[in-house]
């Protein structure tokens, strides 16, 4: 049977700050290696999202200025469809700024709260310009294995009762530097602060997303293993670098 998946990449121009594009390159390549056709729709500001047409949705991070511009479009043009997609089990990956926008709200250091989509039962608070920014290599425990990446965020994210953390921090800061959580999972939607890019160095997580999308569409999501020697080497190197460094808080 011909397998095919459709990915909606939200705001590839505006929300691509920390090599987020690497995540798409990774999904493309890992699908192609299994003869799964992956079609990517790039949706910019003003372009509608068709919740019924996609199997995967990706949104990356951005500078504050672009994030504000995107936040308005997300609420007005895409929010409702995104909510329906998540309810229908579409696989969503939101990194850094995208993760914050999918929460309930973002409370800046000064001024009014910026409303989010409320897809994640999570909210983000910026503790002010003098507060430490969370920057550095990060390693987290996920499903008995590790995820590696780099984090760079001023906002602290907290999870409500409907949200589960994606992972537990081993080295680094994670959601808020306090409770040891990193990221969020709700249905098949994942939010995380890890970039680096995230997926190329975390092939098991990349395959987890592909498998979830296949299972939802075809009823089974088994994937043939790939030669991930280089991926695992980069992963192990990143773990070593993050854990060896003392963590200054």
């Amino acid at each position, binding site marked *: 049977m011909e397998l095919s998946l459709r990915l909606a990449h939200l705001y590839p*121009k*505006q929300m*691509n*700050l*920390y*090599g*987020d*594009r*690497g995540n798409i*390159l*990774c999904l493309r*390549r890992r699908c192609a290696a299994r003869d799964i056709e992956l079609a990517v729709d790039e949706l910019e500001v003003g372009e509608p999202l068709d919740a019924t047409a996609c199997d995967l949705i990706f949104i990356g991070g951005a*500078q*504050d*200025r*672009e994030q504000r*511009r995107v936040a308005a479009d997300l609420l007005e043009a895409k929010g409702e469809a995104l909510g329906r997609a998540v309810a229908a089990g579409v696989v969503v990956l939101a990194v850094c700024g995208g993760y914050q926008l999918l929460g309930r709200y973002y409370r800046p250091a000064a001024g009014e709260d910026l409303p989010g989509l409320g897809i994640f039962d999570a909210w983000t608070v910026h503790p002010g310009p003098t507060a430490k920014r969370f*920057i*550095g*290599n990060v390693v987290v425990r996920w499903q008995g294995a590790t995820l590696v990446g*780099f984090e*760079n965020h001023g906002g602290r994210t907290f999870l409500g009762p409907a949200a589960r953390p994606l992972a537990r921090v081993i080295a680094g800061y994670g959601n808020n530097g306090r409770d040891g959580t990193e990221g969020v999972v709700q249905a098949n939607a994942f939010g995380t602060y890890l*970039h*680096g*890019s995230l997926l*190329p*160095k975390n092939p098991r997580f990349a395959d987890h997303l592909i498998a979830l999308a296949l299972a939802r569409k075809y009823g089974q999501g088994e994937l043939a293993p790939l030669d991930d*020697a*280089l*991926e695992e*080497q*980069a992963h192990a*190197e*990143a773990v070593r*670098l993050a854990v060896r460094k003392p963590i200054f808080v």
Partner: protein
Amino acid sequence: MTKPVAGVRTAAAVSTAKLAAALSRRLGLGGGTALPGLMAEAVAPGLAARLAGELGHGCLLVTGTNGKTTTARLVRNIARAAGYRPVHNGAGSNMMRGITAALSEAADSQGRIRQGERSLGVFEVDEATLPEAADALGPRVIAFTNLFRDQLDRYGEVDSVAALWREALAGLPPAVTVVLNADDPGVAGLADACQGPILFYGVADTACAVGGLEHAADARWCPVCGHEYAYSAVFYGHVGRWQCPACGRSRPSAQVEAVRVEQPSAGPLGVELTSPVGRLELSLPLIGLYNVYNALAAAAVAMALGVEGAAIQRGVASFTAAFGRQERFDVRGRGVQTILAKNPAGLNQVLRALVAESGPKNLLFLLNDDIADGRDVSWIWDVDFEMLAGHTGLLLASGRRAADMALRLKYAGLDPDPTLECSAERALARALSLTPELGTLYVVPTYTAMLQVRRILARWGHRPQFWEET
């Protein structure tokens, strides 16, 4: 009237700096470029400002994400050709301590700049140091090269750098000339914050244009109305002939403009430019369109100082690349060319220049993640390595993040050598042994990897180390 004797404290600070520099070199701690400045500032705070006041022709500053070292070095050569005695922080130490060290080096033991009446300060300045440097040194000219994302973990976002620059420009006395890149909307837009004369430079030869915006493009949206810019030509990154279709804001006309650019695969870049002092032909012994921009910026700075065309031509033609920027060595019967690349826009330009040359290239990429490189290596995913397809011979990854680099190459559909050597020395030795005799090995390092490569090549007996360069 004779100048008052410099303060005892200034003299003591200058002596301290000289001693620290000598010791640092003697002990092999490095080029002695930052530590002496730090120590001198400790002995006499405000030393840089006092010494800068002694520069007979004042000073000029060059800043921006990419090209500031090359541009400042070009200006230094031009200044020399024009008869000035340039005082220059040539070793790439571009924060206040590096400038202080360069000024101390140029001073005598009394704390006076030698041949002060002929002296001109030519300082490369770190993006975030610009406000402090402009305030302390009182420059005549400030030049901006371009503004791209660079080491986000260190500098913060592109917008915060621009905001810092605007604030510094708004506080300048109106006599300061500001030299701006008309083709980079993020730099050209600084004009709004300027109080005095502005000199724009840019490229008019649309034969140099590439297909479209790269992934490394940063300034895509008009800051006034938020609309996406339209480009009639893109030269690299977000640099090109831009215009906002909504509010009409557009690339300003450039007084110093390259009307014809020739990029022969062997031999120097040829640039014909129009300027307030007439038409000028430049020959620049470097590769890549980004270096045409550096030459334009340098020429514009020189024109702002009143330097005549012939001296600009001589200065540019006499150029040798700053350490590690673009150097060629002959090692073990192979040519080794090192090209520094430290952010997506810069590395894209390097790749474009390599692809433009014929034949397969032997390539060694060295990716480090020290503070000076940026701890975050995710920027390599914004580089369009895909353009190397069909152009590579040997393809090796090294450095502290060798596996990340190799992975990026793999996902670009390339086939990197599976042996990963984190040690720069072993990687270099291996790459050389695999490069055919008489062939060329291109070494593309990040900043600290470039310093390592320099040291290794020097140990193998090639070229003096950088602080011995003049």
